[in-house]
């Protein structure tokens, strides 16, 4: 291994192209975008240096505050749901379905490979109220009359929960498979001996399985939190951030600011805040994971 790391020509050939590509499509745009935060304007009207004005503007921008809180609320709710349901699915695959789980795993994983826009359209139709009732409203009308029927995606509070349900359902199969992969690596002997010591059901999961799954759980949490903090397409396709801006995350606010209002500098500042938030969350998660590993 040491000799491989000393072979600079091999490193150049194997890492160089990827590093070059990464620099071109990731690092340079990031630096460029951070540079934009000190300017205001648009490609048509030109740019003007404004110093820290864009950062100061964030402090008093109520729409930014709302979108930030919405993003955090959305990210923590969806991540909790995705990981919890993913874990339940993984346990179900390993301890209940066992060898026969492949068909169920494939079916539950299916929404992961379906385009987000298609899933959003499916949910729009499911929760539709006009011009005709979707499945949910039709069932509610059947069970309890028209008083239970709601414009689910047309109200901020109910719209939020429809988004949550959709995004949890869409991704739980992925986390189910990820945690399943971690779970089958847990030695059978450990589980058997725990059982012989009297552990079963919840106590077996809490005391034996979860501690052994912790590295995979941490990775899943980082994946999920970073994905949900940057949510864009599913909300755009389901509610468009509306009604008003009631379901508008930071990414959508950034998109509107930069590309609809032509305020490229302020839009870049919003996205710089989002990137910082994602970085902080990831660092906290890594710190948390490292401390766990260090513990005896």
């Amino acid at each position, binding site marked *: 291994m040491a000799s491989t790391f000393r072979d600079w020509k091999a490193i150049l050939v194997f890492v160089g192209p990827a590093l070059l590509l990464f620099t071109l499509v990731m690092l340079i745009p990031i630096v460029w975008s951070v540079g934009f935060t000190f300017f205001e304007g*648009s*490609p048509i009207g030109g740019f003007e240096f404004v110093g820290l004005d864009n950062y100061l503007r964030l402090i008093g921008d109520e729409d930014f505050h709302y979108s930030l809180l919405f993003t955090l609320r959305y990210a923590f709710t969806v991540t909790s749901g995705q990981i919890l349901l993913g874990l339940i699915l993984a346990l179900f695959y390993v301890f209940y379905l066992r060898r026969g789980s492949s068909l169920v795993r494939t079916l539950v994983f299916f929404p992961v490979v379906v385009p987000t826009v298609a899933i959003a359209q499916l949910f729009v139709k499911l929760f539709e*109220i006009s*011009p005709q009732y979707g499945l949910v409203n039709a069932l509610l009308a059947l069970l309890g009359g028209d008083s239970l029927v709601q*414009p689910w995606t*047309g109200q901020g509070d109910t719209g939020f929960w429809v988004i949550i349900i959709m995004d949890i359902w869409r991704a739980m199969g992925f986390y189910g498979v990820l945690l399943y992969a971690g779970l089958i690596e847990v030695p059978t002997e450990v589980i058997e001996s725990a059982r012989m010591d009297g552990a079963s059901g919840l106590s077996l999961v809490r005391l034996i399985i979860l501690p052994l799954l912790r590295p995979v759980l941490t990775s899943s949490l980082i994946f999920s939190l970073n994905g949900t903090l940057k949510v864009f397409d599913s909300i755009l396709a389901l509610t468009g951030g*509306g*009604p008003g801006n009631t379901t508008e995350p930071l990414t959508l606010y950034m998109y509107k600011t930069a*590309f609809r*209002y032509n305020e490229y500098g302020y839009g870049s500042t919003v996205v710089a805040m989002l990137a910082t938030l994602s970085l902080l969350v990831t660092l906290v998660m890594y710190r948390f994971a490292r401390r766990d590993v260090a513990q005896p």
Partner: protein
Amino acid sequence: MKSRHVLWNVLVVIVVCVTLVACAPPAAEPTAEPAVEPTEEPAEAPEGVIHYLTVQQEDEGWPLLLSQLTTECQAEHPGLSWEYEYVTQDDLSQHIQLLAGSDSLPELFNYESGAPLIDLVDSGQVVEVEELFTDLGIMDALNPAAVTLLKGLVNGIGLYALPMELNVEGFWYNKAIFDQYGLDVPTTWDEMLAAADTLNDAGVQPFAVSGMQAWPITRLINGYVVRYYGYDAMARLIAGELSATDEGFVEAAQVIQDMALADYFGPGVNTLDYGPAQDLFLQGEAAMFYMGSWALRDFNNPEVNLIGADNIGYFNIPVVEGGVGTMADYSINAGLTTSLGQTAYDENPEAVGAWLQCVMPKYGDQAMSELGLITGFAVSEVPDDVSALTQMTLAELAGAENGFPWFEAYFDSRTQDIATSNAQLLVTGDITPEDYMAELQAAIDAQ
């Protein structure tokens, strides 16, 4: 050791090959013609491609008409050809921004007349149409009223757009439903509300409104405001003579909120997109539909219009008691206009000029005969088979004494967004009329 060297050499060869392929100049396009300059062709024969960036599909509306006319022109100018590029309306602004940033706007492109177009004009990226058309001798292809309308949207600084269509807005109603419930065509807002109440009580949805698009809601607010303050209400608002917090504006927002909360717009108004809202009206599920005459394309299409074109009537925005606006004032607009890119024109003025001279004088007639579409271009003869609805709309336009634009015409992008997105909250009762107008005025002050 030997195998390692072989592997190393293979890798180096692959990397070099990939690099050479990636850096090589693009392969020359296969050409049917030999690469010899045609010396026989007259020097003045224009050659070039006219690009059109548009939000309409190739087989509909403006692209269809321009494509047909270009094909006709090719008999006279075989060197002219036509290229079409579609972009969704949501992405149009961003697309134009990026093209303008690299000074590569095409010969023709859709863009919104008003504040966004003024930015392009200020940066010298759009052709002044009146001067160009006068030079080309085709200024009489344009309807003078449409020219005045378009100039007004850019504060009179010139003519920077083509009126590919000319629309009058108002309420379209289902005659059979009105007859069934003994309703007269309303002339006052109160009469319209009374009619809506009768319909609502009878279980008929009074209005089809697309809250998802949001602008159909602000159109109603605009209608009330204009009838309250007169046709120049929005111009006076933007000039600072009126404030959005004034009584008439707040009353307008209150009336529209009351209409929504009384279920006049049906359930889940904010979940209804443009197409389904129009379908509600054209399938007889809703009695009235506020829309522009661009909808005639669908009204005249029996596959879409299930209630029949003869069953659709029109009435202008009713007057408001105590207001100064009259029924002779109409909401008139040129829809999403088409502009000419200055750089693309400068690169090949002969070709663009020849194309304009050939296509523009025929556009009005072609639109009327092919699609029954009313445009801001001169029409030499109205065909006999044009639909009754189109004839009625032409008559309404002819009777207009004053025209006024849509609610957001004078707003910048941020203010437009505040007006429309807050309108969604207004109809659900999540924002008060006072707050709606206060936020709007704050945005106007900041623009």
